[in-house]
């Protein structure tokens, strides 16, 4: 992705900090302070009322929800140093960006890299303003870990394709305006027969059915495509180039999944040991009353520290070597495993009180923890399962060969 000049002189950055402070003061409604985490539904910041909508529009127009994206497509056009200043200043006053979702995390960066000028001009500004919701049409019932075996077929019909087939695990499919999808344009080749297309979700022939998960919520959908017309101008890259583009997008996804594990688990959350002490008490020597649980919590917290040290090392190495460290490939596996471990320990500490499903007798935090524990089981499956990550490590890093 194109970013502007890397290093700005310190004095320039300090000037910029002044501008950021002034702009945030004028535009961020203090009533929204710290409410960013509450945004989960399809309405986004708009669910928080007129002030939420005003804030989304203000930061969207400024391009600061996508601070390092090019200015010409509605991004902030900031250098990394400036983006860091913006991030710091927003964190300092409890401001948060309402511009999020798959458009930001995965699709936008990929389209900036592979899209035509027309495609970028059409789609990127709307993503920057938080006006269009994107969903991912990758997995199919018969193509999960073996994604390249996908079957949804796009038949050539002159100036458009006619698409027939089914996608599944379409995150946010019921709310999405657009879908970026991998389709098959050639049945004779596996990887080279795949093409990357953009599908308007209002096109006739698309049916979306939410999937109810073990956590009781429906973040994913099954999406059925019957005789859906997709103009060829909505193809990204060439026919048969979809696997390359699609994999690049997955890299953005994995980076976000592992990177997100830190903030989700490390910041804001009380240490497990504190939760356990509050729930179970301590003995005369000041140790957690359940000695066996104490050991397992210590084991978790030690591994968690090693994980954070590793995440920091990946960043340092990438900076020093000017590329992605091979160690980054293990972050998703380790971060998601530890996230699940933490959730298991949390409900174990709480006993049956930690298994509340709904209704009286439970705090909203307890009910939330139950659902989080269950929905967290997805983390080691999606975005390349732990088993697939192990295949990647063995083959690409360790040079262990394919079975013949």
């Amino acid at each position, binding site marked *: 992705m194109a970013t502007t000049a890397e290093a700005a002189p310190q004095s320039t950055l300090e000037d910029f900090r002044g501008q950021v402070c002034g702009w945030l003061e004028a535009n961020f409604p203090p009533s929204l302070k710290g409410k960013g985490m509450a945004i989960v539904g399809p309405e986004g910041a708009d669910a928080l009322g007129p002030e939420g909508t005003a804030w989304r529009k203000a930061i969207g127009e400024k391009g600061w929800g996508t601070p390092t994206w090019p200015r010409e497509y509605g991004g902030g056009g900031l250098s990394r140093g400036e983006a860091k200043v913006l991030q710091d200043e927003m964190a300092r006053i409890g401001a948060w960006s309402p511009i999020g979702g798959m458009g930001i995390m995965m699709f936008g960066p990929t389209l900036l890299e592979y899209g035509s000028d027309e495609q970028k001009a059409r789609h990127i500004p709307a993503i920057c303003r938080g006006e269009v919701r994107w969903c991912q049409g990758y997995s199919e019932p018969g193509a999960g870990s073996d994604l390249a075996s996908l079957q949804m077929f796009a038949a050539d019909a002159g100036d458009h394709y006619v698409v027939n087939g089914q996608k599944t695990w379409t995150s946010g499919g019921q709310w999405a305006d657009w879908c970026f999808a991998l389709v098959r344009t050639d049945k004779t080749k596996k990887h080279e027969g795949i093409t990357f297309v953009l599908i308007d979700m209002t096109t006739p022939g698309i049916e979306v059915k939410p999937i109810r998960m073990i956590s009781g919520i429906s973040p994913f959908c099954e999406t059925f495509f019957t005789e859906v017309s997709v103009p060829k101008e909505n193809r990204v890259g060439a026919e048969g180039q979809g696997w390359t583009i699609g994999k690049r997008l997955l890299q953005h996804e994995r980076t976000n999944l592992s990177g997100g594990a830190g903030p989700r688990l490390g910041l804001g959350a009380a240490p497990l040991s504190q939760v356990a002490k509050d729930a179970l008490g301590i003995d005369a020597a000041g140790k957690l009353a359940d000695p066996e649980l104490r050991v397992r919590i210590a084991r978790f917290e030690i591994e968690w520290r090693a994980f954070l040290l590793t995440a920091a090392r990946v960043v340092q190495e990438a900076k020093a070597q000017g590329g992605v460290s091979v160690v980054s490939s*293990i972050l998703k596996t380790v971060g998601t495993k530890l996230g699940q471990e933490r959730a298991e320990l949390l409900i174990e500490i709480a006993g049956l009180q930690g298994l509340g499903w709904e209704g009286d007798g439970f705090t909203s935090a307890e009910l939330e923890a139950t659902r989080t524990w269950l929905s967290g089981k997805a983390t080691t499956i999606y975005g390349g399962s732990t088993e697939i990550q192990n295949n990647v490590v063995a083959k690409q890093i360790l040079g262990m060969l394919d079975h013949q």
Partner: protein
Amino acid sequence: MAVLSEEQTMLRDMAREWTQNESPVGNYRKVRDGKPKEGFDPAVHRTMAEMGWTGIVIPEEYGGTDFGWLSLGLVIEETAKTLTASPIAASALAASALVLGDSDAGKQEWLPRLASGEAVGSLAFDEGARHAPDAIATTATLEADGWTLQGRKAFVQEATGADLLIVAAKTGEDIALFAVPADAAGVTIAPRHLTDSRGHGEVTLAGVHVPASARIGDAKIYEAVLDRARTLAAAEMLGMSQQAFDTTLAYLKQRVQFGEIIARFQALQHRMADLFTRIELMRSAVEGGLAALDSGVDVPATVAVAKAVANETMHLVSREAIQLHGGIGMTDEYDIGFVIKRARVLENAWGSAAFHRDRFATLAGY
């Protein structure tokens, strides 16, 4: 790999090159079979000293380079890859007790000799088979012209080659550290042959008299030196784990069964991917510990993380390395079997994983 300074990169490369070319595992085998009294080859120690490796954590005014603990850790990690039998870690730890302590006479007397490699030092702390830093029965009694030490120290590393022992002893209620020449009257050192064929020994202190200046530090220094010892043991295990992993990977890529190179089998690929992942976490934890010793930030907890993670990873790698080699991994002729025999000694040294989990929890207040 941590991001290194130019100086550290040169040091690491030099250590790597020397170890691979001049100190192959065959040399360790020779030490084991030749059983030198010191537990290491004195000529090899002189060579390592000439390269400056004995002075890495000693200030320049005493003849060292003061490169710091991460730098020393790099050298230990590299030399550990071929199980190089060397007292440089033990000697650096003895030196650190003097550096951190407050006896100028002790510094003047010993630091230049430790830095040059002319003298070898070691820590005589633990008194039993398991690490128990609070369980010190050895006493130091203050007299008109100095101190008298009485007690027994178990499994002192490099004891049979040491010129200087840093002894932890009770002075009433408190623990203090004393610099005791290994040839002082009343000191006897009995070799204890462990699975790693190194120079361990039981040290008996029978009315050993030392001058007042031999008291070099208090309980705070004792704690600080222990954290340094734990971290260097972890650094040695990092080198051993990495090498055992690399050796095993190379073996899987050439061993043929069922008409195939066994590295193609997914059952083995996933075990290797898991070991790779754990060794990378271990590397972060160990380098984090070494860096904390240099920065002084959050040392005890960071060291507990380093030693706990290093112990558990080393333990698993040493077992998997044998299993994945199959029968040949059980033979004395094959080098991989040496790893487990040194690994368990280091796992015990300065605290097991259980010890450090308990310590981590205690430091965190639970």
